[in-house]
């Protein structure tokens, strides 16, 4: 049992993990998974109940070393320290057994560790300079390096692309062969089927079911998570209009992408795919004005927007969901209503005022539309679960009925049902006449697209129409086939 | 003798009556601390009904609010020592409107009515110090002036008088001026640096013995310059204030002189004139019965108390306030 103020995060939940198995924990956003992780790793005490390792009671909360011998973890929230080097992050608080730190030896150990996981990162680089993916890989390498016999991975793949996920799975399989026990949390259920032997479902802070994965139909698993019959998402068919709502011409940004042209029509969803560092995110961020291109122009709704200027893009009718919600997505201390309505603050009252009642009304409507689970429009977004915070960011993108929508990795860390809601929201907007660009590492997301532009080393190499198979698309993304 | 006549002021609570409010300017210098110690003693001697004192910590804004509070609590006369002589004008105006007489100690407000200013002439300090050093050095050489805060009128008066006197009477002497902000740490650093640059410095004028004395001696000691007056390496030091430690240093021959700023007389005559103004007594310019002169100011009167120069010859004089404390 775990409470946070009025919120019950865990309510009589229990989980038993057999030695040597890889055990999946699934559930909707806010089901209490991460809370359980922090209790199992000794970061927080449970209000009621106890943790047992191999039948023995867990060590005292203060004895961090004892906990770390028993369990290692990749937390959902980054535990990287940006101002320190990769090498030091890997061996944080165990740089030396005692005595003086020998940096050269430490770097060598770090190099070796990263090599075994094929992470190509300079160990002397500052962790803050790494990309999101690289940071995640460093965290995984660190967790696996403790030599603990029990490892917890809380959504390790939410920020990884296909090949990196594959490498992680290879690693997990070999660990399991060595008898290591793992708890694996993910919102990608196919990963659960691929790597896990048994699965536990949490819902509304309670334990629902634990079963072997084999012989647990996908549909039933989803139903157990959502508590109701849920159909798989069906992307809708539509015919794009003629009007160009978003266009980029001759865009180049040194080190990211080169000479990209792109047009999005009203009623069209254009996907942007590519492996890590292909430049897709950089391109999308240029379209919305977060980055200033070295060359080229961006046109929204026929208006040429000032390069690198978000407000002018928004004024021209753009809405967007940034890559990292914590970084650019929301202001944690401000309420759901306020976060969602920042772009239309000027329209919620006269003479520069913001009418709280109109703001609230608009927010209630968005909360309904996107099915955001919150105490009310007045709750700070910082208190929401990850998926719901992401929905608030979506709400902000949609609040001004944009005619062009750019969404970057919109479903990272979002549960099945929320994912459907978010993709549905994109499609709804497009049906209302908007055009959308959808950037994603998740091939499932890209299925809603009318066509997918594949980028490779900073160039658009192929325009793939609807109807592709995973295999075909991955081949293009990896540069194997043009 | 004081020219006293009895033209009683109206509304001041009548003769002989009324509480006196007092504000101390600061509590972080030895001179003022001695003054603070003398005040209750002198008040008791002269039977002044003194209210609990306030302290404006060298902040004129605090002084203004303190005075408001004192008046609010029923003060019929105010003794203050405004370290910022301009910014008190409005307050003095208000006090005049309320017919509350004001005695200003140590500083002379630029504007606004005061019934009496009790102070020694700070320009005279600077001039005395200049003359002392000039004569000892024979009209040539280099001297350092460790100045106080440039934002204080007394510091500025001493500095200007010293500078002008040197320029006119001893043009052969080079003066280095160090703005120490009444800080010992700055004084030590600046003096040390200046002696490094000009090892032939032969005289030092310290604006405040309380803060400058120990650092100066420490620097001189470090440079092996703390030698008796006969020695050619001797540096002549004249201080200001006349606290007991300065007198002790004069006895030991570490410094040569000081200008004794009479903390006891400040307290005594502050109380005297406060009571006198409540009693309705008034005064006229001219010499007084206590070796001082009252002069006329545009906005009141000023009693210029004597500030003796103390050297080895008269350092044991019992009348020096520095010999009376302990």
């Amino acid at each position: 049992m775990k409470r946070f103020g009025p919120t019950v995060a865990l309510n009589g939940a229990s989980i038993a993990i057999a030695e040597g198995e890889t055990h999946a924990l699934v559930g909707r956003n806010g089901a209490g998974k991460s809370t359980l992780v922090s209790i199992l790793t000794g970061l927080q005490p449970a209000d009621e109940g106890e943790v047992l390792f191999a039948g023995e009671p867990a060590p005292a909360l203060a004895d961090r070393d004892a906990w770390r011998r028993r369990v290692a973890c990749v937390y959902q929230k980054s535990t990287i320290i940006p101002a320190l080097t990769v090498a030091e992050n890997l061996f944080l608080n165990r740089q030396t057994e005692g005595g003086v730190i020998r940096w050269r030896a430490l770097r060598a150990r770090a190099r070796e560790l990263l090599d075994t996981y094929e992470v190509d990162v300079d160990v002397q680089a500052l962790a803050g300079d790494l990309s999101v993916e690289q940071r995640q890989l460093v965290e995984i390498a660190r967790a696996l390096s403790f030599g603990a016999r029990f490892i917890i991975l809380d959504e390790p793949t939410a920020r990884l692309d296909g090949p990196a996920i594959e490498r992680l799975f290879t690693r997990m399989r070999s660990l399991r062969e060595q008898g290591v026990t793992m708890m694996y949390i993910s919102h990608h259920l196919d990963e659960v089927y691929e790597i896990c032997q048994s699965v536990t479902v949490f819902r509304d802070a309670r334990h629902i079911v634990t079963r072997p994965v084999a012989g647990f139909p996908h549909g039933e698993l989803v139903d157990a998570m959502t508590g109701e019959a849920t159909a798989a998402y069906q992307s809708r068919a539509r015919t794009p209009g003629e009007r160009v709502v978003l266009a980029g011409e001759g865009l180049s940004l040194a080190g990211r992408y080169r000479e990209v042209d792109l047009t999005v029509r009203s009623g069209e969803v254009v996907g942007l795919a590519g492996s890590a560092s292909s430049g897709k995110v950089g391109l999308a961020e240029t379209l919305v004005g977060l980055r200033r291109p070295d060359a080229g122009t961006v046109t929204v709704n026929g208006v040429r927007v000032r390069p690198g200027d978000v407000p002018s893009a928004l004024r021209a009718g753009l809405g967007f969901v940034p890559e990292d919600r914590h970084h650019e997505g929301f202001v944690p201390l401000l309420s759901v209503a306020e976060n969602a309505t920042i772009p239309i603050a000027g329209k919620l009252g006269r003479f520069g005022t913001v009418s709280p009642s109109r703001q609230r009304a608009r927010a209630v409507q968005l909360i309904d539309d996107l099915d955001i689970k919150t105490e009310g429009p007045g709750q700070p977004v910082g208190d929401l679960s990850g998926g719901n915070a992401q929905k608030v960011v979506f709400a902000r993108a949609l609040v001004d009925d944009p005619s062009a929508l750019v969404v970057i990795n919109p479903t990272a860390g979002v549960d099945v049902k929320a994912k459907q809601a978010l993709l549905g929201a994109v499609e709804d907007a497009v049906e209302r006449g908007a055009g959308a660009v959808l950037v994603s590492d998740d091939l499932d997301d890209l299925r809603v697209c009318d066509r997918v532009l594949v980028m490779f080393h900073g160039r658009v190499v192929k325009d793939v129409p609807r109807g592709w198979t995973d295999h075909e698309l991955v081949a293009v993304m990896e540069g194997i086939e043009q | 003798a004081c020219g006293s006549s009895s033209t009683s002021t109206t509304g001041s609570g009548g003769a002989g009556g009324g509480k006196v409010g007092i504000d101390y300017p600061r509590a972080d210098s030895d001179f003022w601390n001695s003054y603070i110690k003398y005040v209750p003693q002198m008040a008791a001697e002269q039977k002044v009904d003194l209210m609990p004192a306030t302290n404006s910590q060298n902040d004129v804004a605090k002084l203004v609010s303190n005075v408001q509070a004192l008046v609010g609590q029923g003060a019929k006369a105010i003794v203050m020592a405004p370290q910022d002589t301009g910014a008190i004008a409005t307050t003095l105006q208000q006090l005049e409107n309320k017919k509350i007489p004001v005695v200003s100690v140590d500083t002379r407000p630029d504007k606004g009515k005061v019934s009496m200013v009790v102070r020694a002439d700070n320009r005279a300090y600077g001039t005395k110090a200049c003359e002392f050093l000039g004569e000892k050095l024979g009209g040539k050489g280099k001297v350092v002036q460790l100045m106080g805060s440039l934002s204080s009128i007394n510091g500025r008066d001493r500095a200007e008088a010293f500078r002008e006197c040197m320029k006119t009477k001893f043009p052969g002497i080079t003066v280095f001026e160090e703005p120490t902000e009444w800080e010992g740490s700055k004084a030590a650093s600046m003096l040390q640096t200046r002696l490094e640059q000009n090892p032939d410095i032969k005289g030092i004028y310290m604006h405040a013995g309380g803060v400058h004395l120990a650092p100066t001696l420490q620097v001189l000691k470090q440079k092996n310059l703390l030698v008796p007056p006969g020695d050619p390496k001797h540096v002549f030091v004249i201080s200001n204030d006349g606290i007991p430690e300065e007198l002790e240093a004069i006895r030991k021959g570490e410094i040569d002189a000081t200008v004794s700023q009479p903390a006891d007389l400040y307290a005594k005559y502050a109380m005297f004139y406060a009571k006198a103004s409540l009693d309705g007594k008034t005064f006229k310019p001219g010499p007084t019965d206590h070796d001082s002169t009252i002069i006329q100011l545009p906005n009141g009167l000023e009693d210029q108390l004597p500030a003796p120069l103390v050297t080895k010859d008269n350092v044991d004089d019992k009348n020096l306030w520095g010999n009376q404390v302990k």
Partner: protein
Amino acid sequence: MTTLTASPSPRVRLARFRDLTLVPVILILLVVGAVLDPTFLTSGNLTNVLQQQAAISLLVLAEAMILIAGKFDLSLESTVGMAPAIAVMLVIPASAGGFGLGLPGGLVIPLCLLVGAAIGAFNGFLIIKFQLSAFIVTLAMLIIVHGLQLGPTQGKTLFELPDSILYLGSAVWLGLPASIWIAGVLFAAGIAGLAYFRIGRSLYAIGGNIDAARAAGIRVDRVLWGVFILGGTLAALAGVLETGRLGAIGSNQGVGWIFMVFAAAVIGGVSMDGGKGTILGALTGVLVIGLVQNILTLKGVSGFWQPVVYGAIILVALIISRIAGGKAQD
């Protein structure tokens, strides 16, 4: 999904009163003051407290806005003395210590506000355009601006002032000093502006997450720059009020205020980390500090021990606002 065992309203309702955690402290001070000294609760004395705090409260208003936007300004305290001093020197004749430019005396307040705004603009320029640390830029500016007063005035007090600059700080309107009215109106504007206006809300967004604010289309640089300019202007106005109250401009007018300004803002609930706090809260902080000073003065606590009592009361107020506010402070 979150299951709510309790109704959410108590939480929300409490949050709304978080600005007012100092109100019990103020009440305690009023009672204590009344018990200790009969003068304390008189309207004359309370008016004095308000008048004495009027100028510094404008600095607290300015600093609260700057802190909420996630920045820092130490140089405000030097502006309090320097802006009116320079403005006055521009209009008075050289014989009275001015520059002798002979500008009309009526210009002195506009000039003063302009000087304040210019200082704020320069701060903003360095901090926003050069991306320098706000703390250290404004620390350097604190020193420089004070020097820019000492230099031209040669450390002297300016006491021959044009009437126009004396008026606001000394006039009485409807039985209350004008400075109280001015501070009151500006605080009301600040409270409303930060609660109900788009521009005010954007300060919270910028202070809470500057990247998110930028991504949401707020013109972050422009807003921040505006806040610095407004801050400098308010500090200059505080200087005008203080000048009128004191009748002259001393060379250390405003010196040492900034610590009290921060203390007032922070015990009033404004976070040093940005994005948190209200103008109303900051106002309660000013009042607490003013009342404490007044009581200490009335009781005539020895100047030597005053700081101890004073600091201890700030600590206690801090602890009370921590307990009532319920959240760890940054």
